[in-house]
């Protein structure tokens, strides 16, 4: 069962990449989130995001960090399963043969599709930032990620006559209406707080981009390694037959 092998492998790849992300996030990204939240609490109430009394939330400190690590490892497992499914399908079809350098390229492509592509239209957000309706942004996020991912896959692996379709898929997310927020990014009444939040936001974009790059390079590299080491173990002969 290649399905079972992919899932087990995704657990391992996701655990490793999620831990890499967690170290980067806890040291460079979370301090910015916490700093921004102090302005959020002191400033205005954020409609959809009032931590109302009845809703459970992890305690600040160890418990909150633990849930962050758990969420990161889960995200790693999810992305790893998608990567491994695509990698194994393309390798079984004889379209590509994964190697560690190619794993790094896959990781880079994942970073471009899942972090850079949506960030071009909607920059990463810190707590307290003003933004358009959540559902619209989530919908556009999905469109950007899926469009750019499919575009990169077509350009990389489809026959030459179809490659133009890849360009179309890359462009579509940016010609539709991107749900931007109209007006200032921060509605805090104190101008010095707005200045501090603006500076935190630029630092956040840099630090989260670097953390995500590390995350995706780890995902691509370990996924490529695990694919040849374990997922395809014992079925290499059949793969060669398929290509013959």
């Amino acid at each position, binding site marked *: 069962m290649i399905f079972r092998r992919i899932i087990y492998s995704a657990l391992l790849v996701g655990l490793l990449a999620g831990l890499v992300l967690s170290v980067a996030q806890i040291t460079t990204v979370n301090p910015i989130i916490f700093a921004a939240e102090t302005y959020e609490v002191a400033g205005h109430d954020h409609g959809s995001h009032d931590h109302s009394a009845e*809703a459970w939330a992890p305690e600040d400190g160890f418990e909150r960090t633990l849930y962050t690590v758990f*969420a990161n490892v889960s995200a790693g497992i*999810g992305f790893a399963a998608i990567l491994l499914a695509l990698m194994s399908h393309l390798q079984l079809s004889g379209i590509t043969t994964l190697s560690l350098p190619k794993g790094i390229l896959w990781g880079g492509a994942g970073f471009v599709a899942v972090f850079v592509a949506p960030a071009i239209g909607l920059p990463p957000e810190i707590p307290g930032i003003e933004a358009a309706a959540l559902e619209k942004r989530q919908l556009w996020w999905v469109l950007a990620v899926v469009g750019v991912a499919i575009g990169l896959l077509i350009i990389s692996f489809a026959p030459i006559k179809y490659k133009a379709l890849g360009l179309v898929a890359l462009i579509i997310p940016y010609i539709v209406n991107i749900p931007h927020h109209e007006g200032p990014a921060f509605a805090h009444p104190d101008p010095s707080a707005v200045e501090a939040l603006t500076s935190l936001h630029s630092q956040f974009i840099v630090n989260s981009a670097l953390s995500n790059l590390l995350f995706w390079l780890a995902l691509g590299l370990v996924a490529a390694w695990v694919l040849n080491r374990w997922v395809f173990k014992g079925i290499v002969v059949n793969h060669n037959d398929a290509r013959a």
Partner: protein
Amino acid sequence: MLSNSSSSGLPAESQAKAVVASPMQTVGALAFGLVIIFAVGFMPVEAAHNAAHDSRHALAFPCH
């Protein structure tokens, strides 16, 4: 399971098919990944949002 087929004496062509023809397994693994990504990044339940809050911000999912 797949490796067994290589020693089963089947003609090479059908062996190849036995390995290549697994679109449902690929789709299954893709769906598994997508469900997890949805849970971590998009699930609107308040407790799920609070648990994954910092990760949603760090991974640049739309959050608030």
